[in-house]
């Protein structure tokens, strides 16, 4: 991916090259390398998982699964296909969304509101992580600077795993509007993140 424009600096300030090196060592069964890799990326991955899943113990369970998967897939890591941080976050997001969907299937009777009116009533429940994240002060940075309507589309798609048709139903908006909002939101985010990186 053209991730070079979006170098995400890991908390420990470890250059991405070192993270790729750690993955190489992990592929050879190096547990110390894995320990360091975890220390660098667990916070970022957990932040993402927590935005999708409100329940802390469920989020912790998913985090554990993500890093177990990362350890097992280390031999298949290909630097040409993505940076280490993207490699971890893709898995974190996919796992968290899978978990959220399985929870939804179990609790279908009182979730899946058909329009925004019902969705607002649900805001205080487990089933609205976007709002939950906002309550916890997690919505900040580039996402917080989006217009509300665009932010909702991103939240519902990226943090709740809804398809565009489902988002349209949830918001009571035409599908075409949802698609346009998604594109506009993504373009704004890209510009904002590039700007924040000081290299756009």
């Amino acid at each position, binding site marked *: 991916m053209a991730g070079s*424009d979006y170098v995400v600096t890991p908390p420990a300030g470890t250059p991405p090259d070192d993270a790729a090196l750690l993955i190489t060592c992990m592929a050879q069964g190096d547990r110390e390398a894995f*320990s360091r890799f975890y220390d660098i990326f667990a916070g970022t991955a957990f932040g993402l998982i*927590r935005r999708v899943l409100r329940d802390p113990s469920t989020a912790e369970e998913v985090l554990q699964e993500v890093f177990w998967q990362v350890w097992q897939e280390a031999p298949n890591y290909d630097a040409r296909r993505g940076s280490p941080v993207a490699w971890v976050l893709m898995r974190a997001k996919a796992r968290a969304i899978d978990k959220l969907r399985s929870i939804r299937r179990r609790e279908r009777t009182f979730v899946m509101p058909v329009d925004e009116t019902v969705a607002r009533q649900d805001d205080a429940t487990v089933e609205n992580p976007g709002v939950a994240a906002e309550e916890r002060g997690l919505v900040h940075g580039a996402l917080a600077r989006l217009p509300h309507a665009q932010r909702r589309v991103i939240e519902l798609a990226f943090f709740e795993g809804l398809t565009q048709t489902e988002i349209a139903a949830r918001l009571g908006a035409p599908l075409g509007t949802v698609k346009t909002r998604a594109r506009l939101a993504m373009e704004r985010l890209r510009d904002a993140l590039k700007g924040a990186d000081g290299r756009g």
Partner: protein
Amino acid sequence: MNRDEIRELAAGYALGGLDGDDRARFEALLRAGDQEAAAELSDFEATLMGLAAESTEAPPPGVKAAVMARVAAEARAKPREAPARPAPARAAPRRSWWPAAWAAAMAAGIAAIVVGLSVSATYEKRVEGLAREAAGLRAELGRQQAMVALIRDPATQIVALAGLEEAPSARARMIWNAPAGGLFIAAGLPAAPAGKTYQLWAIAGKNAPVSAGVFEVDARGTGSLRVLPLAGVDKVDVFAVTLEPAGGLPAPSGKMYLAGKS
């Protein structure tokens, strides 16, 4: 398809929210090698990763402990092999200290094996010693049990032997059971001279004495002999002890030291 449309699909695809038809259309573009679609997609994917990385939250330490434990358990179950695929070139020049770490880990592993072997050798010796000790105790227990059984048997008789002229203070007991044999215990006998030994005889009626075996006495003059059943002898009238040449004789030839009637 115009540029906005492609971007729209790319944005939805990156978000993971494209419905069936749209997803099929966009994937067809990617398969067809559409440069713009691929570029937009990777751009948006990177954007989302940047978005995801904006908020971090430290997980509780228990999660790491659990993952590391799982990894350690897997390493014990099936050690990981070196990957078939060569490492990325950019990483290669900076790997220098990892092989050293590996060598150290291997050395530690070998040391553990050596220590393990030496510990196991020590334990094997110990187990051998215990086995010998147990065999000895079992044999001793067998002897004790045989004696107790012998004494308990109503058919068992105890014959007292008194010292004769050569050893007036000598005393002996014969615990005798014809079918089972018996146990002879003597005390107060003088030490047998060199080349000589004491021999126990069983005499039935007017028959010739039958040898019941030879025995040595210790410095205090005590000796004992386990006597096996004597062939053709079911009733013994007299037990007697004589001093005979070492190894004993088929018939008594020396002086009598002890004698007792049953």
